[in-house]
């Protein structure tokens, strides 16, 4: 009896202990209860001791010489090292200390390795990432990097820094997301850095509408298609002013045979699935530089605010890096050595994305049903089969997936029902890179050290993809902008529609030579600027298609043209400007059309409010909400003949906003405004009135813009409790302050290049990725309130402008 009760107790205790040690018990997503709650190793250990910041002195094995790190009151590290290698080593160490899980999950998400730690539920996503070839592309990039000794040594130093942090990290101190998901950090490798680079390419250069355009052209016919979807907005104000002459002889672009007119030959018969997930729209950015001739101080000022999906932890890691021959401040991408946007005492630089389409789709002409070979001109070619090995948590054996690679690139989809079945993806990020003297990292390291314009011009030669508009200003008084990257030579309308993959002549005709890339240096108008709009006016000798902004760029150029005696504060205000040119034109037009009808709604109080609106998307204003709802409804009702919901809508291309406004303005009696199912013939005036009637019903309640737009900053792992949803901000995707739902300015920087840089910056986040740290989101409120922090390029660790919160005194391990 005594034995039995003992055995029962032993059994129950053991069983419960095992159960409480199990991650995700019974298929739930719960962390293992015992280890997670244990205050000795679980989540409690991630709570930082608030207010206790003491100087630390310790050894690091990878250092070659003593170094110091000063953390300022916001927790931003200022690193002082004796060599570039030590600098990169410490950057790796610090970024790992603050952002280890972010680095880990970003690599997994891009390379298609999430299922390793999250199991079956993310397997489909991993498969697509693999089939898109991101891991393969990273491996190719790495091979090139290895051949460049300078960059390679910096990558290795960075890698060692990350790994020296990880190897001394007790399990109790693993970032909390590792504990929630129940896995451990893995060692960092240079391949991980290459993958992070490709994730940037994926975010910024993977937009494609080939299939939607092909489908929609088939639906509406070519002539209506050309009418609704013109490639160029005549009102655009390009990045390179139209006064610039192209004083070069363009390289000839071979003229392939005309594309088959019947797009249906390029389509699968059925299109029941979603297209490839697109990078989120409205990712854009602003940068500009104003010459000393236009500023109050006489010194040039450079500004940059990249708009991206806002996350906690932030995509950026702010820091200063100093070593002999370099002293620079800016923001880094966790996982990548160096700074991507920043300044030193001589120059400042910043990027916006270039919208050129560099992902095209080709229909593969298989020789037989085995899909092992395809036609390529007069010959046949075998596919190269790459087997992707995907480890899945909870499965004994890995999942094997064979991907067919053609000359164009991978055949991404295997499901015969899928609309992309038989289509090969041709994407610049996968294209074997030419051998160059240096690569993307070399570009940023040259910018970090740059002393003036020649260094900037030289640095850009290494940067290929994702193409960026690199803005530049120097203390010498130079300003410049270059539409920089590897941009394919295309024939109109190459790359707009799905193309015939059996014709080698359909390939890109090479690339625009670096020296022919759109660029302007010290223009007469005294400023350079970009906001993701078209790079050039129509006279640029090379054809390109893509995805371009239509309003921010025009407004930015207009404002900079008007401004004079510019001060830093004026440009901060411009970054925070909620004025929308789209609304200026759109609201005016909607009201004009409404006033030409006899509806009583013309005197509705909400409409009166809209008449008095200043076109600013301020947080507490109600007019912008009505405008946005009205515009959306009018758009929907105009294009009601296009599929509006479900699977069909997802493969349809809708006209751009600027085109819709032009149609309302120029052709209000066009047949496309007619609802085909009604007997009466509607025109634009009817549509606009009906759209408003649908909103201003009897139970209409006005709503503040902030309530309607509900901006938020998500946690990178989509854990709602780690996100911020309480942002009292305005903004609009077609305003310079392009806050839009979960996207917006991810880093605002303003740098005046005087005797010493007068620099300001803010980002919605904090240095730490730890939700248990006061530095997790310590600058979110400042960002939301439109405040900036002074950015001090410290001369030494003793620079008195910065009061250190704490500091590291580091020695090489004996």
């Amino acid at each position: 009896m005594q034995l039995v009760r003992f055995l029962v107790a032993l059994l129950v205790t053991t069983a419960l202990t095992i159960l409480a040690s199990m991650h995700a018990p019974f298929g739930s997503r719960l962390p293992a209860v015992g280890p997670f709650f244990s205050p000795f190793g679980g989540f409690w250990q991630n709570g930082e001791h608030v207010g206790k910041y003491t100087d630390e002195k310790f050894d690091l094995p990878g250092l070659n010489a003593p170094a110091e790190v000063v953390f300022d009151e916001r927790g931003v590290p200022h690193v002082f090292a004796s060599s570039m290698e030590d600098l990169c080593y410490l950057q790796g160490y610090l970024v790992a200390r603050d952002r280890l899980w972010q680095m880990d999950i970003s690599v997994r998400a891009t390379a298609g390795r999430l299922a390793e730690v999250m199991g079956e539920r993310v397997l489909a996503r991993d498969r697509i990432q693999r089939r898109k070839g991101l891991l393969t592309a990273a491996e190719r990039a790495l091979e090139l990097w290895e051949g460049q000794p300078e960059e390679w040594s910096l990558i290795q130093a960075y890698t060692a820094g990350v790994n020296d942090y990880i190897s001394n990290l007790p399990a109790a101190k693993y970032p909390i997301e590792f504990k929630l998901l129940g896995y451990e950090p893995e060692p960092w490798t240079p391949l991980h850095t290459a993958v992070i680079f490709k994730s940037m390419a994926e975010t910024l250069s993977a937009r494609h509408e080939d299939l939607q355009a092909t489908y929609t052209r088939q639906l509406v016919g070519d002539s209506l298609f050309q009418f609704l979807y013109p490639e160029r907005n005549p009102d655009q104000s390009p990045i390179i002013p139209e006064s610039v002459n192209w004083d070069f002889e363009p390289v000839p672009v071979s003229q392939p045979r005309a594309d088959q007119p019947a797009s249906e030959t390029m389509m699968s018969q059925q299109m029941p699935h979603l297209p490839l997930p697109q990078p989120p729209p409205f990712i854009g950015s602003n940068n500009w530089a104003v010459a000393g001739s236009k500023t109050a101080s006489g010194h040039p000022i450079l500004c940059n605010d990249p708009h991206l999906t806002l996350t906690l932890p932030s995509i950026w890691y702010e820091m200063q890096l100093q070593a002999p021959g370099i002293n620079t401040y800016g923001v880094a991408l966790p996982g990548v050595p160096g700074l991507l946007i920043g300044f030193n005492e001589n120059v400042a630089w910043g990027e916006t994305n270039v919208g050129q389409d560099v992902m095209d789709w080709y229909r593969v002409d298989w020789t037989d049903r085995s899909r092992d070979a395809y036609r390529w001109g007069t010959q046949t070619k075998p596919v190269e089969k790459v087997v992707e090995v995907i480890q899945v948590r909870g499965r004994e054996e890995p999942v094997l997936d064979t991907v067919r690679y053609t000359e164009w690139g991978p055949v991404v989809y295997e499901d015969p029902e899928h609309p992309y079945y038989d289509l090969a993806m041709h994407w610049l990020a996968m294209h074997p890179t030419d051998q160059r003297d240096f690569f993307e990292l070399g570009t940023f390291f040259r910018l970090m050290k740059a002393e003036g314009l020649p260094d900037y011009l030289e640095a850009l030669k290494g940067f290929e993809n994702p193409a960026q508009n690199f803005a530049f200003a120097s203390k010498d008084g130079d300003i410049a902008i270059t539409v920089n990257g590897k941009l394919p030579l295309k024939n109109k309308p190459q790359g707009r529609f799905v193309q015939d993959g059996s014709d080698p002549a359909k390939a890109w005709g090479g690339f625009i030579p670096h020296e022919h890339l759109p660029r302007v240096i010290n223009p007469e108008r005294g400023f350079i600027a970009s906001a993701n709009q078209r790079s050039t006016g129509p006279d640029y000798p090379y054809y390109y298609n893509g995805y371009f902004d239509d309003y921010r760029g025009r407004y930015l150029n207009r404002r900079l043209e008007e401004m004079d005696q510019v001060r830093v504060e004026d440009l901060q205000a411009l970054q925070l400007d909620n004025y929308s040119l789209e609304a200026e034109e759109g609201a005016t037009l909607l009201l004009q059309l409404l006033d030409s009808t006899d509806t009583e709604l013309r005197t509705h109080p909400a409409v009166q409010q809209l008449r008095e609106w200043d076109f600013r998307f301020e947080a507490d204003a109600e007019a912008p909400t009505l405008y946005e709802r009205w515009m959306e409804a009018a758009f929907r009702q105009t294009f009601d003949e296009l599929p509006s919901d479900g699977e069909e809508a997802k493969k349809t291309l809708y006209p751009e906003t600027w085109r819709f406004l032009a149609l309302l303005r120029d052709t209000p009696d066009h047949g496309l405004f007619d609802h085909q199912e009604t007997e009466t013939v509607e025109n634009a005036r009817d549509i606009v009135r009906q759209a408003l009637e649908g909103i201003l019903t009897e139970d209409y309640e006005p709503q503040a813009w902030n309530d309607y737009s509900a901006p938020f900053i998500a946690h990178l792992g989509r854990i709602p409790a780690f996100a911020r949803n309480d942002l009292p901000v305005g903004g609009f995707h077609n305003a310079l302050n392009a806050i839009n739902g979960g996207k917006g300015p991810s880093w605002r920087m303003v740098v005046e290049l005087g005797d010493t840089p007068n620099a300001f910056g803010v980002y919605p986040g904090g240095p730490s990725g730890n939700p248990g740290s006061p530095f997790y989101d310590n600058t979110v409120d400042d960002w939301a309130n439109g405040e900036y922090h002074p950015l001090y390029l410290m001369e030494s660790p003793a620079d008195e402008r910065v009061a250190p919160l704490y500091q590291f005194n580091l020695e090489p391990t004996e």
Partner: protein
Amino acid sequence: MQKIFSYVFALFLGGAVVLSLLPWWSLPIFAALLAFWLKVRPGAAVLGGLIGGFLLWAGYAGLLNVQNDGLLSARIGALLGGVGGGMLVLATGLIGGLFAGLGALTGSWAVPLLRRSS
């Protein structure tokens, strides 16, 4: 009664040392070994284990929570369906108490077995 006090005391101090070095499941094992070694009666073992485990886990969690200004517990509490930081400390204590109590009972019931065999 005095036995409970000394058991709780030993569990609290010894547990702090053991758990700093070993994974969380060393708690029930240590509670069992301690109850066996001190020959604690079953009733006292359960009570002592509950109290000692609770104090150890809730105490340490509470200390960390105070040092952290409740920043993290507010977020974890929200993640677990809207519990406050105090509740989270309490829940942590109960989990510690449960496993220490179970371990203690097992250890206590092992005492007569060994006595008989010897």
